[in-house]
């Protein structure tokens, strides 16, 4: 049964005129409008925190990947036998670390993994810049590896791929090595000494296997004869080195002197010297730009080391060896100029590289490590004085065949060139990080 309520006419009219309660609907209407605006705003802005979070996470992941690159770089320096590193690797490489945070951080800051592989793929040329390694996945033959570091943070992952290249100090086969295309030399007086026997840096005898006194490029008998002809009779005893006919270790080495200590030998090549210089010159501690007419002259090099080891006139100490790179701008293969002049009481330790210009060294000069002079129309004039000398070796790598006689080496006074395994090992072992290079940085 339906009940019908009937309002009297008077009551209905009163209800229609009654405006009480209008504020509530109006307030609700406004509230609704504002709520709509807020909702619209939130809809648009809700993505913003997510975008920001994604951005922050990917940035943090990249930081983790970069930390992984540094970790992998250190690992490859510490484990410099890369074939051991590659043991068990496939063509896609092998992981060399489980996921881990960077030093001093926890996993909440992100983690990285690092893998390494040999550059055997044909496409690796694009990364390394050289032909693919002809070795295998487990056998490195070109001293280049591909390192991949993957950083993870939250939901983000970033990958950085780099090539790591190792420079290897060429096997030095003589106290004075002339592996280039020419070996014009001049010897003046009979007070100089070129010893292929091993010396310690303090001047005492070393115990390492001797090397030749003077070497030229393998098979180049013309250059060999040129050097031998430059040695006068009264200078024969000034050059000493292992005899080419000496029995191999552990037999006692047989020494030779004079012309017999001048050998053409394939052990050290011009290309090896060029490659080594190209690999490490960018790592130089001191770079000196010179040009024809703008020679760099130094006196008493090394005197600043005690007060400021980072000084550009400090060419390294035994506790802090340096790479010193003198860069000439010789482009005219018919000319030559002296771009570096060192005099006075000078000392230095490390690798002295002179490229594209001549160098002149005089005074009481002591150097521990190799001195490398390379380029077109280059040469080294060494006029020794005092009790100093070169402990290590001198490498003069002439790349141009000029017609006139432009000396690759001019040895005068009482200059001492002494092969020193100790000095060469010091350079190789204490400058390790400089011999390694990360390049071709790519991100994915």
């Amino acid at each position: 049964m339906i009940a019908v309520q009937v309002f009297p006419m008077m009551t209905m009219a009163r209800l229609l005129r009654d405006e009480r309660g209008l504020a509530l609907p109006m307030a609700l209407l406004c509230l609704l409008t504002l709520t709509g605006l807020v909702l619209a705003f939130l809809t648009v802005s809700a993505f913003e925190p997510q975008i920001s979070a994604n951005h922050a996470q990917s940035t943090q992941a990249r930081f983790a990947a970069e930390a992984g690159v540094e970790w992998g770089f250190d690992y490859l320096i510490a484990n410099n036998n890369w074939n051991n590193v590659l043991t068990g690797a496939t063509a896609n490489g092998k992981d060399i670390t489980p996921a881990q945070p960077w030093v001093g951080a926890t996993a909440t800051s992100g983690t990285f993994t690092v893998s390494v592989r040999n550059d055997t793929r044909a496409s690796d040329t694009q990364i390394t810049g050289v032909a693919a390694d002809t070795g295998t996945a487990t056998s490195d033959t070109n001293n280049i590896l591909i390192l991949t570091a993957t950083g993870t943070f939250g939901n983000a992952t970033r990958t950085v791929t780099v090539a790591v290249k190792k420079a290897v100090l060429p096997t030095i086969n003589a106290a004075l090595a002339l592996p280039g295309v020419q070996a014009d030399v001049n010897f003046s007086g009979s007070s100089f000494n070129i010893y292929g026997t091993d010396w310690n840096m303090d001047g005492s005898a070393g115990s390492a296997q001797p090397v030749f006194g003077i070497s030229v490029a393998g098979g180049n008998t013309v250059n060999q004869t040129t050097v031998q002809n430059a040695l006068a009779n009264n200078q024969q005893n000034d050059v000493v080195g292992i005899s080419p006919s000496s029995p191999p270790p552990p037999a006692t080495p047989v020494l030779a002197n004079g012309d017999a200590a001048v050998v053409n030998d394939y052990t050290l090549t011009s290309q090896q010297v060029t490659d080594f210089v190209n690999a490490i010159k960018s790592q130089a501690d001191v770079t000196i730009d010179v040009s024809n007419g703008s020679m760099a002259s130094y006196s008493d090099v090394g005197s600043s080391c005690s007060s400021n080891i980072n000084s550009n006139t400090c060419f390294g100490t035994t506790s802090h060896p340096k790479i010193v790179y003198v860069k000439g701008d010789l482009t005219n293969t018919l000319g030559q100029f002296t771009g570096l002049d060192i005099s006075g009481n000078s000392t230095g330790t490390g690798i002295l590289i002179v490229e594209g210009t001549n160098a002149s060294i005089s005074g009481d000069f002591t150097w521990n490590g190799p001195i490398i002079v390379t380029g077109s129309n280059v040469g080294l004039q060494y006029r020794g004085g005092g009790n100093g000398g070169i402990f290590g070796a001198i490498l003069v790598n002439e790349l141009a065949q000029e017609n006139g006689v432009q000396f690759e080496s001019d040895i005068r006074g009482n200059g001492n060139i002494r092969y020193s395994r100790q000095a060469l090992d010091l350079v190789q072992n204490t400058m390790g990080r400089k011999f390694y290079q990360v390049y071709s940085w790519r991100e994915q």
Partner: protein
Amino acid sequence: MSDRGYTLAELLVALAVAGIVMSGLLSMLMAGQQSYLVGTNQIEAQQNLRIAIGRMIQEIRLAGEDPTKVNFDAITNQTATGLTIQNDWNANGAIQNAGTVGVTLNDGVTVVQRGEQVIYSLNGTTLMRQETGVDNAAQSVADGIQSLTFTYFKADGVTPAAVAADVRQVVIDIIAQPVHQPSTSAAGAVHIKMTDKVRLRNRGA
């Protein structure tokens, strides 16, 4: 009960009360509207800016890939509002200023076509990017760029790089606004500024 209606005084009081309530509501509404406009415009400008600076940073960071060590300039044509990024992707020792080269990714399989030059420039308020070979003309990356300033430094990050060969770090200052920028801040006008310093990873900086 009387049916004579409202008196004038009652009407005025009612209107006054209603006016006060409405003006309060109106100011709330306007504040909400302004917040909405500022917020949405800020987001628009911020997203534009993030896209622009994010892409530039990544490409500048990797500039100068030079596997064969010919030592070309990683950044060239460097001005306050534009630059050209160079990479020798195919390791042939030269930068191709036309066409693309196939770049094999780390999986050894995937090949992507890349241009060896990427040019960033500012055209009015539009950031433009052109990758040689990939783009026939400069493409818009982000609109509403009010100002863009590149500053170039040597490896120490302090000494200005006077020539392209010295560039090892790049500082990017960029200010953006919504494409349809209102005339007043009350109407939602906003400016967003971002600054970043990028170190060229492939140049040992």
